[in-house]
């Protein structure tokens, strides 16, 4: 092949490969994801349940308040802080760094919990 032909062929090959990648990107990405990693924490009778939840890096934890009284979700290290959550309201936080995150309800500080991110 002449150099010019090789250039066009290479370009075509690149385009073909790119198209394959993009066409397949949806299914490729899905099968590469880990199984559902997000977690829910419920608030019932002034208790976070489960009190300790363990999630992988990148997971989202969602708190939902089932009490007749508003609560908050506040990290003791200032990492996250929810607005006040009334009955049935939710708060979500996505943990992008590994670590142990202690939190509590700033309205009823005896309520405490932990998120462990591995």
């Amino acid at each position, binding site marked *: 092949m002449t150099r010019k032909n090789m250039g066009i062929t290479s370009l075509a090959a690149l385009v073909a490969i790119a198209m394959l990648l993009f066409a397949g990107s949806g299914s490729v990405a899905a099968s590469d994801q880990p199984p559902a990693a997000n977690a829910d924490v419920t608030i019932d009778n002034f208790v976070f349940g489960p009190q300790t939840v363990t999630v992988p890096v990148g997971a989202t934890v969602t708190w939902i308040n089932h009490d*007749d009284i*508003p609560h908050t979700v506040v990290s003791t290290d200032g990492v996250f802080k929810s607005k*006040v959550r009334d009955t049935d309201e939710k708060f979500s936080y996505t943990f992008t760094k590994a670590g142990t995150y202690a939190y509590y309800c700033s309205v009823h500080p005896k309520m405490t919990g932990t998120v462990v991110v591995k």
Partner: protein
Amino acid sequence: MSGKKQDLIDQKLQDLNDDGIDRRGFLKCMAWAGTGLVWTLSGGIPGSRAFAKSSGKDAAKGADFSFVQISDSHIGFNKLANPDVTATLQTAINKINAMPHKPDFIIHTGDLSQLSKSSEFDTLDQVLKGASAKQIYFVPGEHDMLTDNGEQYLQRYGKGTKGAGWYSFDHKGVHFVGLVNVANLKAGGMGSLGHEQLEWFEDDLKGRSASTPIVLFAHIPLWTIYPDWGWGTDDSEQALSYVKRFGSVTVLNGHIHQIMQKIEGKVSFHTAMSTAFPQPAPGSAPSAGPMKVPADQLQRVLGITDVNYLVSGRSLAVIDSPLADSDPATANGAGSAVVDSTLE
């Protein structure tokens, strides 16, 4: 009705005398009974019906002034335990307005609102406008600190206060101190006064004669009632040490939505009912949350507190009244008189 309540107080003192224990001895005895709960009011006191029907007319005989404590109005709350807390607050104000002896002022010991919303504070102000007692003193509850660390509470009710809203004032020889124990609460803890406020408080009391009657008021109880539910203040011991030298100290709190009292030496502690909803007795339910009662009983477990001060005896009479008159057979909750005096 007139004379009945005074008769009851006289009767109580008579009974004590008949036991061979005079009042001084009785109070000493109760103090020795320890730092735990001395008694929880639960109706059944002879003449509790009289308390429900009148609201301190005769205990006020000879009183130099009186004021009323209300607490925990939780404007904005609308769940089953009370779908209309504004209406029950209005009932409380009507009851105060109807009292034969006019209180000099009202003290609200916090949880004015449910969610610290503007609209909730507006509604509260609207109802309180109808009180014939024009002077109202406030301290915030944790529900008033929810959206902005209490900024809005301070703007509306914190004129002349320091820090998170503490202050003091004098009225006819009695020194009143409003304390804030709902700011900067720490994980795992209970109520908290904090170093800055404690310093201010110690300084505020300096130089005052020990015969000055002291009234402290704060939202969360300043004595430990039930730590599991956060019913106490982590650093209240230090605050109470500052008032040790005074001859008469009365502590008025809210937060727990039920009446509890304790006498320890010269200090009387008293918590008020809510005007919004009751809460369960310590440990009697999975949590401290709003307690539902049958609709026709709601007004019997909500109430106001009438405090009468007698200069001559330097004593305060604290009388709780439910919002509704209760039939003696089914009376529950409020209805009692605590008369304390300096032990001199």
